[in-house]
């Protein structure tokens, strides 16, 4: 950080502390003090707007309540950081997964897929082509669709990543998900590294969403979704979109092309 930036940061901090001291006690808290359950609802972001503002007023005015709220959000933060994907472990898992045998199998599968794409198509090719193009206005994806080769490649990769990550979980952690997901070796092998990585991330995200329906995904995950599954990113209810999409993907795993 440059000297100018540091000075600016300090200046902001001084102004903020001054504003806090000058505005202390300006607003009397409205409504009754929050109960423990209302604090829980605040953490879950399930309060209506006006009650939320009232409770924030109490938290602001009452140092003991502020202290308690702070500890609650910090313990939520612990959970968040404990479950956040570590880039190192992701790379390690990818390295472990890409054993020579798997890579050769994946290469064979990819060659097959490429052959399907590149080899001359039958006479009805031209009439099928418009069906492969995405329609101009697509609704948000809430379930996977294997309607194009591109989608298939991505979704095979996502499923493969999900499957590897899922089978690495302990049985205790697998149980709440209630999936019957084929072993990675039983799936069509994909070499779409980004899609496989996205599959890993989706499992972490699902676990986060099960803890907190209002879970805000990291920007890197949103960027990956925008890149590979753009329609899913347009879904306003992120957690539900991810849950529905993943469940659809898994239920179709046996029928994958």
């Amino acid at each position, binding site marked *: 950080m440059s000297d100018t930036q540091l000075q600016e940061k300090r200046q902001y901090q001084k*102004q903020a502390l001054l504003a806090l001291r000058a505005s202390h006690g300006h607003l009397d808290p409205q409504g009754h003090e929050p109960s423990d359950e209302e604090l829980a609802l605040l953490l879950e972001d399930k309060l209506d707007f006006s009650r939320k503002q009232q409770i924030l007023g109490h938290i602001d005015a009452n140092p003991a309540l502020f202290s308690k709220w702070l500890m609650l959000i910090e313990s939520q933060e612990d959970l968040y950081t404990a479950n956040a994907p570590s880039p190192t472990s992701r790379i390690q898992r990818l390295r472990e997964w890409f054993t020579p045998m798997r890579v050769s199998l994946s290469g064979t599968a990819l060659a097959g897929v490429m052959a399907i794409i590149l080899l001359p198509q039958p006479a009805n090719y031209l009439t099928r082509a418009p069906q492969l193009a995405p329609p101009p206005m697509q609704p948000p994806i809430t379930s996977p669709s294997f309607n194009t080769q591109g989608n298939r490649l991505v979704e095979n990769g996502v499923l493969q990543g999900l499957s590897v990550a899922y089978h690495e979980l302990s049985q205790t952690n697998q149980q709440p998900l209630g999936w019957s997901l084929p072993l990675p070796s039983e799936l069509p092998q994909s070499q779409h590294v980004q899609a496989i990585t996205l599959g890993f991330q989706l499992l972490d995200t699902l676990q986060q969403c099960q803890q907190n329906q209002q879970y805000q995904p990291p920007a890197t995950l949103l960027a990956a979704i925008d890149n590979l599954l753009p329609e899913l990113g347009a879904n306003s209810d992120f957690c539900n979109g991810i849950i529905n999409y993943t469940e659809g993907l898994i239920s179709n795993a046996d029928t994958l092309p």
Partner: protein
Amino acid sequence: MATDWPVIIFQPRWMQRLDQLALRRFSQPGLAEEASGYVIEQLSLDDWAACKQYSGRAKPETYLLTLCHNLLEEFSRKRFGRPRPPEWLKREGDLWVRVWKMVCMERQLLPSVTDQLSLAGQRSTDTIVQIARVIKARLPWCGSSAREIPADCLCHSDDEDSVEFEQPDASIEQKLNHQQLEESLTLINQWLLLADSPSNNATDINNHIKDRPTLASPEQWQQLRNSLALTSEERLLLKLVYQEGLKLNAVARALNMPSYQPGRLLKALHTRIRQALVDADITFTNNTFEEAGFNV
């Protein structure tokens, strides 16, 4: 449908979370284990009476989290007494009080305190170390097992079995009526410039004290208060960022905002604060701040 609390609480996942909470609060494994046991015992008393207030609106696990925090604090009070932080510490914010409580009252080691409070990088460890250093410099008995904790730092509750969390009247500032508050703001003004704010450099202040004019009259402070009109959410945002030292993405999660929003709100807030200072005819230049010894 009634919630089956024993089933939820004795789930390995929840028990693990409780152990983590206790360890995070007390850092010593033995003490943390004792605290977890205390929480379970208190929750299960009278057929889980402590959970009976639950109406089913929040998730049972989140509700339990709030109860566990209450009980861990209760355990701490029973073990270490109810701490009474000095007023100057309270003025610095909750983070200062917590460092004081952990280092001075519970005599936890500084590395484990910084580890617990840094939230895996969501708060700067340098800030925590600096706070502990200032507190130890001002309170030489702090953290030393050879010295007793002064009696005025502890308040042993008459009712040892009280289950309530610390009462809201803990803060002296809250007891002030409106008129007193106005007077106190003038004093705070003086304090901001001269007094014993530990984040100020006392030597620098003393060097400049003779020549410095009073920066704001009570009327100016009143005008500043009126024109600022910060909402509770805005005040909490400022507190979390500038007093508690949390990073913006953690603040966004705390206030249930999209991750980009705290940054935007802060920017707008700073513009408003600057304008309010101008409107109240309180002009702070960089130099004035530095002369006043603000090293916050």
